[in-house]
């Protein structure tokens, strides 16, 4: 019973941790769906959104604004920062690169990454800024069944709820709104979409804005978990295997991929890592991703692209 309890605890913890990776992965999926570009800057966008949020929140709380009002205003401020960022990226980088190869656009996002990292730290500071938007203690459930109960972290549960809500909102946006459908058309072919009157510059602004807002959502959870700090950019590396497994174009795939990566790496670390010296979870996620790539290159939920030659 003890062994089963321990396994369930690791499994639940892993699944919930995976959902937190999915929060970051969703931003990648959005931009890839709309522009066919792998946005290397998504981790930096989470950092920028988090810094804007926490620094404005601290500023307002220090001036006596009630905490609830300060949180709302700080979220609005951070959303505005992400909107301005999206507009600047569209105007200065993506606009001039319309109809260029995907590789050029990908390289541009590497440039954007460093600009956002540097500018974010220059404007808002490079310290660790604590953020406490959600509870971080734990529940111990099924105490009667398992000795000491099964540990479930409240923050992870909040992350899961937020990810679920986000997926629902994004699904409605992509399937039911005119802008969402236009986004999908742009993803298929920039030039063709433009030729039928879809304003590509506006669409790219919208998608970067939505990705920015998803980054802000991820920052609220990860900022509470780690404090807002530079290390948040490394989450992009955690999201990559999630995307490979779930598929670069699928919102539900990002969630399922996250669950697989989270559970897989935690179980591997706890049960396999102890036998071979530990520290394996970081690369084990990529082993899982490679296995999926070999069997299903487009990911479990990705669209199979068939091109006529």
């Amino acid at each position, binding site marked *: 019973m003890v062994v089963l309890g321990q396994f369930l605890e690791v499994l639940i913890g892993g699944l919930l*941790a995976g959902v937190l990776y999915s929060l970051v992965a969703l931003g990648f999926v959005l931009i890839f769906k709309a522009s066919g570009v792998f946005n290397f800057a998504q981790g930096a966008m989470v950092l920028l959104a988090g810094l804007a949020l926490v620094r404005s929140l601290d500023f307002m709380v220090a001036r006596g604004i009630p905490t609830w009002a300060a949180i709302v205003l700080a979220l609005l401020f951070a959303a505005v920062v992400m909107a301005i960022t999206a507009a600047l990226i569209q105007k200065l980088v993506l606009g001039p690169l319309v109809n260029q190869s995907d590789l050029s656009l990908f390289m541009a996002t590497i440039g954007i990454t460093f600009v956002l990292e540097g500018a974010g730290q220059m404007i808002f500071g490079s310290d660790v800024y604590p953020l406490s938007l959600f509870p971080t*203690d*734990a529940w111990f459930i099924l105490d009667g069944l398992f000795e000491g109960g099964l540990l479930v972290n409240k923050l992870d549960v909040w992350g899961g709820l937020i990810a679920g809500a986000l997926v629902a909102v994004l699904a409605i946006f992509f399937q039911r709104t005119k802008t969402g459908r236009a986004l999908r058309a742009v993803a298929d072919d920039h030039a063709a979409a433009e030729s039928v009157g879809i304003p590509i510059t506006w669409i790219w602004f919208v998608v970067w804005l939505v990705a920015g807002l998803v980054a802000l959502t991820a920052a609220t959870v990860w900022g509470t978990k*780690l404090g807002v700090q530079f290390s948040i950019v490394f989450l992009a590396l955690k999201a990559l295997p999630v995307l490979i497994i779930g598929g670069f174009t699928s919102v539900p795939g990002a969630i399922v991929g996250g669950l697989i990566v989270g559970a897989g790496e935690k179980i591997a670390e706890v049960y396999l890592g102890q036998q071979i010296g530990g520290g394996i979870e970081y690369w084990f996620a990529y082993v899982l991703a490679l296995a999926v790539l070999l069997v299903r290159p487009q990911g479990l939920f990705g669209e199979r692209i068939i091109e006529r030659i």
Partner: protein
Amino acid sequence: MLRKTLAFATAASAVLSGAGIMLSAGPAMAQNEQFIPRLVYRTGAYAPNGIPFANGAADYITMLNERDGGINGIKLVMEECETGYATDKGVECYERLKGKGPTGAAYFSPLSTGITFALTEKAPGDKIPLLTTGYGRSESRNGAVFAWNFIAVGSYWTAADIAIQHIAKELGGFDKLKGKKISLVYHDSPYGKEPIAALEVRAKLNGFNFKAIPVTHPGVEQKSQWLAIRQDRPDYVLLWGWGVMNSTSIKEAAAVAYPRDKIIGVWWSGAEPDVIPAGDQAKGYKALMLQHGAGQFAVHADIEKNVYAKGQGVGKDTFGQVLYNRGLIDSLIGTEAIRTAQAKFGKKPLTGEEVRWGFENLNLTAARIKELGFEGMLAPIKFSCEDHQGADQGRVHQWDGKEWKIISDFYTADRKILDPMVAEYSAKYAAEKKITPRDCSKEK
């Protein structure tokens, strides 16, 4: 076309800045100036810990210039190079700065065990000493083999030994360690791995069960490690983290309800940036002190008066914090080595080789430490040809939710245990690198 060019230029310049390539020409040097390079990390994942150290180190040198006109009339000129805690960038900074100034770099202080490992290979060829205050290769204490390394004040083996001594004291004696479980949660890097050898020796000697649990850089995700700890229930956890890893460990410990007062961090896991992000969850957490902790002493008053009053300080936000104070101590040891060397070689800018002599003959007595304004922060330090560490003491402090409180007297690491390890590991290094150890008896 212009817009495309601009877009490319923006991306290119960003990539360059991200790569930490410094394009500034640096300060102009006069012939009577001593050049001190500073490898720092003010950006990146480890910036919250790198910044206060860099501030303290810089403020102390500025204070010497402002108060005393440098050292014996020789002005100190420093230049920072951003390493981002990356070994490749650290080596790049070293190569760029080693020849600067009329006599080249006086010494390097890498503030990274990884960079120290890399520079240990280069320093003998360039004849530039490496000052690694509280970090680096533990066996580099042996000056006969590591002629250019000065692992000042304490090594990770010193730290591991002091941590076990403190646990034994809490338990009521070394005999009480028998059968206890002690786990090490460590940064999976040369830094984090350093204490393992010493802890294994102690585990054998004192009969406790030791387990090492690695955390991959940068340490943002540690759920599996702490779930394993929850299952294993060790009596104590030693934390060998850096940067975000430390506060994440404390938060994860809280999440699995592991008592914070049973965690003891190394002195690089015991500063304000390690506990403040964890909020109330860090209450009760303990860490080793590299002798000093936080707080302000006579030297701080001197810095206030001679640096900040003139609007020249760089670290007001971090003034008196643990890592700021460590930066002060780092520069104190480096500059006192220069002063010692000047007594032999003359009051002029010195070469790295001459400064190395200064390190080996540095004797910071209690009286001298008081005179320099460090009384209460440091115990005496004395280097020699054989001993490039100079001290073996440490204390323990505990975070009460607002500040660090010192909770122990000075412990002295047991050299009967550590000296044979230093001898064994340094001999192995010498054989590997084909180094003939110096005969220190002939250099006295």
